[in-house]
């Protein structure tokens, strides 16, 4: 009630002022609000003082790919200072209010891990978002012969660990949400089959191994179901099954080649790439089965590799019009925004950053991209070609 009265009084006053302002000079209008437009947002200027060596590298990498730029202390919106001798100690000061946002010292684990933790605290304090500094990715590393292995590493490519040792063609690693476990495709049995691999125990099992193609596993957000591509009924189609490889159900019936299924974060839809009326498109199908709906991606053609953002708002994908580009479209479809050259985008858990592979002098290499500022950085390469990154969520 109080609120209503307040509004009743405030609104006419605001309107009166607005009218007054409008009657005066129009050039006085000053828009302060930050507008976040995909690929066009300005980075947040910060200064970085006192950090050396690996800790400084980690802070620069983590902050750059999360939408920060580095400037002199006088030009900074936030001053980040501290030291990294022995342990990381950090201070963050807001240069406008001249107040310390936070100060913190870190101990234990490695210096690298401490720097990631400090970067995460900076991102949280300044943007309110959970940082990505301590997340992991999985990807395939392929030799020129075609054979390769599945790897997992920190999101910045450090601490790589070889998951498979099969010297076979591998493809499409996918994480189980919230667990140290992945699904992937391996040709190790002489056929592309889908494997489940527990990274804590090292145990693995085959989950889908029908005649023909078994590939592109994608785990439902609650971890209970798997979407994938199987050709067991004579054409590559989208199927679902239980996480343990029981209860297979075919979701698409087209004679075309579907590929790369992914889940909506509410678990209701599965988005995939297909061909409808001779055109390559993105489409979605209810996870329990039903009618297929197109997801328009206007402005670009040949969309593949869709990945639905964890906040449900966006679908990132690869478009191909001569070259490969990373694009983002609202999850319901619409006008696509072209971000940077690259393929196979995978969202970070906070829906702000993508990991992707892109051509670097004839070889595929992994990169991390901040979708709002388009700031992008390559991460270290394992072997001939690193591709198909998947961000652990």
């Amino acid at each position, binding site marked *: 009630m109080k609120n209503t009265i307040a509004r009743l009084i405030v609104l006419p006053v605001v309107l009166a002022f607005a009218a007054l302002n409008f009657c005066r000079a129009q050039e006085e209008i000053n828009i302060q609000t930050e507008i976040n437009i995909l690929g066009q947002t300005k980075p947040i200027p910060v200064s970085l003082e006192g950090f050396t060596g690996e800790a400084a590298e980690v802070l620069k990498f983590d902050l750059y790919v999360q939408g920060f730029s580095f400037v002199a202390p006088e030009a900074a919106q936030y001053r980040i200072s501290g030291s990294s001798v022995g342990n990381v100690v950090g201070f963050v000061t807001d240069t406008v209010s001249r107040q310390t946002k936070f100060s913190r010292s870190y101990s234990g684990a490695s210096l690298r891990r401490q720097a990631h933790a400090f970067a995460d605290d900076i991102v949280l304090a300044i943007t309110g978002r959970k940082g990505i500094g301590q997340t992991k990715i999985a990807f395939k590393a*392929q030799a020129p012969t*075609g054979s390769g292995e599945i790897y*997992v590493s920190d999101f910045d490519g450090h601490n790589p*660990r070889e*998951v498979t*040792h*099969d010297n*076979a063609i591998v*493809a*499409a690693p996918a994480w189980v949400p919230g667990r*140290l476990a992945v699904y992937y495709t391996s040709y*190790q*049995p*002489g*056929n*592309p089959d889908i*494997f489940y*691999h527990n*990274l804590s*125990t*090292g*145990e*693995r*099992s*085959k*989950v*889908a191994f*029908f*005649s*023909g*193609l*078994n*590939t*592109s596993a994608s785990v439902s957000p609650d971890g209970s179901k798997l979407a994938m*591509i*199987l*050709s*067991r*009924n*004579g*054409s*590559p189609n989208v199927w679902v099954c239980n996480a*343990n*490889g029981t209860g*297979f159900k075919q979701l698409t*019936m*087209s*004679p075309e*080649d579907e*590929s*790369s299924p992914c889940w909506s974060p509410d678990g209701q839809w599965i988005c995939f*790439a297909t061909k409808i009326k001779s055109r*390559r498109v993105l489409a979605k199908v209810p996870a329990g089965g039903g*009618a297929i709906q197109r997801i328009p991606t206007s402005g670009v053609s040949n969309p*593949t*590799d869709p990945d639905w953002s964890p906040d449900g708002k966006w679908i990132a994908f690869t478009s*191909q019009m001569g070259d490969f580009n990373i694009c983002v479209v609202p999850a319901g479809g619409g006008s696509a925004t072209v971000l940077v050259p690259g*393929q*196979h985008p995978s969202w970070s858990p906070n829906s702000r950053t993508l990991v992707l592979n892109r051509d670097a002098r004839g070889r595929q290499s992994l990169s991390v991209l901040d979708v709002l500022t388009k700031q992008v950085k390559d991460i270290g390469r394992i072997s001939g070609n690193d591709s*198909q990154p998947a961000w652990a969520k």
Partner: protein
Amino acid sequence: MKTIKLIYPLAFALAITLATTGCHNHKAVGVTPIPGSRSGMVGDNNNANTLPSGDKLGSDNNANANGIPVASADTFDNMNEDRAALAAYTIHFAFDSAAIKSAEKSNLESVASALKSDANAKLLIEGNCDDRGTEEYNRSLGERRALAAREALAKDGVDPSRIRTISYGKDKPADPGHDEAAWAKNRRDDFVLLHPKTGV
């Protein structure tokens, strides 16, 4: 005015018709089901679905984890691959297409007659793509290309249960180049004749 009033229901009816026909378009056309020679259910008793364990994450001991072959009930096991026999009959495809070109029909006839003349032989069709297109898109397209040849051979009287398909997507190019000449060579189905191993 009257005509406009009529147009609205007509457009609405058309939209409904399009929507419903779209919804019911579930019947696959030109699709040959794959016989269940390899079962896919975990728990099927004749399939060794559990592999030798891999390594724990963080363990550096990779010594005993290298690919020990998986036992399988696959009827295509215990076959020798003869890659040379049908190498001359590789067929090629147009960009982003799994349609068999009419110029390739004679190659398919040669493959069919090789199978018809040897009742014990089986066939592996390897579908491949050029490197334009993403990896999983090409993996599916390569499978579609292999299946298209399988369907054509079945129409030509070859028992499809004698034919296995595998897609390598863009992982096994015949030519590593990145120009149209290389792409045209890479968009292909290779045919591999399979003979039973003697003494099995």
